[in-house]
């Protein structure tokens, strides 16, 4: 059967036959890099389009419908507009850091793609600390926001950066703890192990209460970490105009914008991998016939389906809820989410030791 895994293996075999191993590796690097960047571009276009359409249908309007069929090419037009716009650098700003900040944002988002298993045997780097790597790299993203806010020489930006820093650093804790709950159940940080462990059922279903609690905390924390409404205080437009990217324009703004959307994709992909089985089809215990039918749906489709479902949930939040206030936001984390997820971790450990999960 044709699968993405087969294709990569045959390409790898052919390259190793044709070239010396070093050159083959180099060519593979180039191919993977190109694919990552094009995935980036496609994700940006698709997610922005999706956001617009989702919001439009929630708000009883049509959304973009002029450029291309059903407005599908609107984001292309916007990208071209952003590319052609002048990128202004405000006077009095720290030019070096101002220009560096969006680059850091996009690089950290790109690095996060590495351990994600897109399909069966289709992964860039299955390193043995997969999940830890994700939380490590995502903590770099906050630096780019702090940098952007500080170097813009703008009060709105600075306030936005302070808010966002406090927010991301605090919500990283409960995001990490809810990830750990699953890691404890699996016994490994490796992405492939986590996916493999869900062959008989997704953790959301077979992990009992701790997995459910962890899933809810993870979704909340992920929304907060990606600065999405109702936690979009860093760019709360009615208070701080645009928060940390007030002064950015043109392509540098587009990079922040792109990084935000790719980060949404990544946290949702992680969520799908941990709780919804990643590329693993929907299996029910020992029901061989049912499981076999499910296996016929390509694994990449399962992965993207789950991820986009979570993305849709996060978009749904955005277009439904009002924004929290900064002190309420931090109270939510430190008074509720963090104690709950700490207790939940203990619960998950107890369940893992006693073997109570399915």
């Amino acid at each position: 059967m044709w699968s993405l895994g087969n294709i990569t293996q045959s390409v790898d075999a052919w390259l190793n036959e044709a070239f010396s191993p070093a050159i083959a590796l180099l060519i593979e690097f180039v191919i993977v890099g190109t694919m990552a960047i094009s995935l980036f571009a496609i994700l940006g276009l698709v997610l922005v389009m999706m956001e617009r359409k989702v919001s439009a249908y929630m708000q009883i309007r049509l959304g973009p419908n002029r450029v291309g069929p059903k407005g599908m090419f609107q984001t292309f037009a916007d990208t071209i507009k952003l590319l052609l716009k002048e990128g202004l650098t405000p006077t009095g700003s720290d030019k070096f850091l101002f220009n560096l900040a969006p680059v850091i944002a996009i690089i950290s988002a790109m690095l996060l793609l590495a351990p994600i298993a897109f399909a069966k045997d289709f992964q860039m780097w299955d390193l043995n600390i997969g999940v830890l790597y994700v939380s490590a790299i995502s903590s770099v993203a906050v630096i780019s926001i702090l940098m952007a806010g500080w170097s813009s020489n703008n009060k709105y930006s600075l306030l936005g950066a302070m808010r966002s820093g406090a927010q991301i650093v605090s919500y990283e804790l409960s995001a990490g703890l809810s990830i750990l709950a699953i890691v404890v159940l699996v016994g490994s940080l490796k992405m492939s192990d986590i996916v493999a462990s869900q062959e008989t059922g997704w953790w959301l279903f077979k992990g009992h209460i701790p997995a459910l609690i962890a899933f809810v905390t993870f979704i909340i924390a992920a929304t907060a970490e990606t600065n999405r409404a109702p936690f979009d205080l860093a760019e709360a437009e009615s208070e701080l105009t645009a928060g940390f990217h007030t002064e950015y324009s043109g392509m540098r703004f587009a990079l922040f914008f792109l990084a935000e959307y790719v980060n949404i994709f990544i946290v949702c992909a992680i969520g799908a991998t941990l709780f919804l089985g990643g590329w693993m089809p929907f299996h029910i215990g020992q029901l061989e016939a049912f499981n076999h039918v499910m296996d016929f749906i390509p694994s990449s489709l399962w992965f993207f389906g789950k991820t986009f479902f979570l993305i849709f949930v996060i978009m749904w939040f955005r277009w439904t809820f009002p924004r929290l206030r900064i002190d309420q936001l931090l109270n939510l984390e430190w008074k509720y989410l963090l104690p709950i997820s700490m207790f939940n971790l203990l619960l998950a450990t107890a369940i893992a030791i006693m073997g109570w999960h399915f």
Partner: protein
Amino acid sequence: MLEEVSVIDQGDMIINIGPQHPSTHGVLQLVVTLNGETIKKVEPHLGYIHRSIEKMCESLSYRQFIYVTSRMDYLSSHINNHGCALCVEKGLQIELPERAKVIRVLMDELTRIASHELWWGAMAMDLGAFTPFFLAFRERETITDIMEDTCGARLTMNYIVPGGVMADLHPDFQRKVKAFIKLFREKADQYNELVTGNIIFQSRMKNVGILSKEDAISYGCTGPTARGSGVNCDIRKLYPYEIYDKLKFDEILETGCDSFSRYLVRVKEMYQSISIIEQLIDNIPEGDFQAKTKAVLKLPKGEFYTRVETARGELGVYIVSEGGTTPYRIKFRSPGFSNLSALNHMAKGGKIGDLVAMMGTLDLVIPDIDR
């Protein structure tokens, strides 16, 4: 006593909210002094759209100046016109036909709903929820359509003139209003479900922007802003004009004194307006829509003051006449101006995110403040 104007400490941050800022619904500039995220002082700077309407009116005749007043509080232009027309009618002692009175009240209440709808959407949008804005516009659009049929305009209507109303009702008026009432009753529950009951929304609004009853009176607040603090100040009840004394409706009072009370007052007022419209829509008396007036109006020498209840509070129209065809001096006591003066008092000690909630519940319309 007045609060002391505190000297700015080192490390305080001064932020301009407006005039070009997403949270100001118009060109209002607020200079906010912040300590971290906590507000120390809010200083409104006005005048970006000041057109000196009072001066303009001094050179316009009593028929003409009504059209300028539509541009003050453009969201309740009917009620502005109504206040001015009442003042002129008081001077000339014109007795209106019943039909004109009923039409005026109907239009006023429709305008009040339209204005509160827009406020509701914008309020939620200020707090970061975009969807309610579009939902509110769905119903508001129906009202503007009704207005367009009868008045020929959608925003600045200029329909109420001294002596009655400009033209008779459109034949479709009753049918469309009834359809609107039905639609509104259906959709208003959606509002409460989406916004009023939302826990984030409530925590953003409760105990925010406290304005005690004494302060509300002292700052001259009127309308829903004061009624959220338990001040009964509804001009329609206290000094009834037209046929308001014959209608059954409640003056909504909330005693929470916070943003959420002001929010509730406005939401409940929409229901009251609907019930007023329901009482009148099938009982519009036949007859003239205008009293017979002279072509050129001349007010006798003297001073005339009328008060009407707009969607934002009490609008006072004060005309000083020397007996000529134009007013000698005209003063509009606009509700927004007084309500805005309470903002500094309310905002002190709150967070910058609260300021948005407070401004939202004051329901500021900037041309009304600047005039």
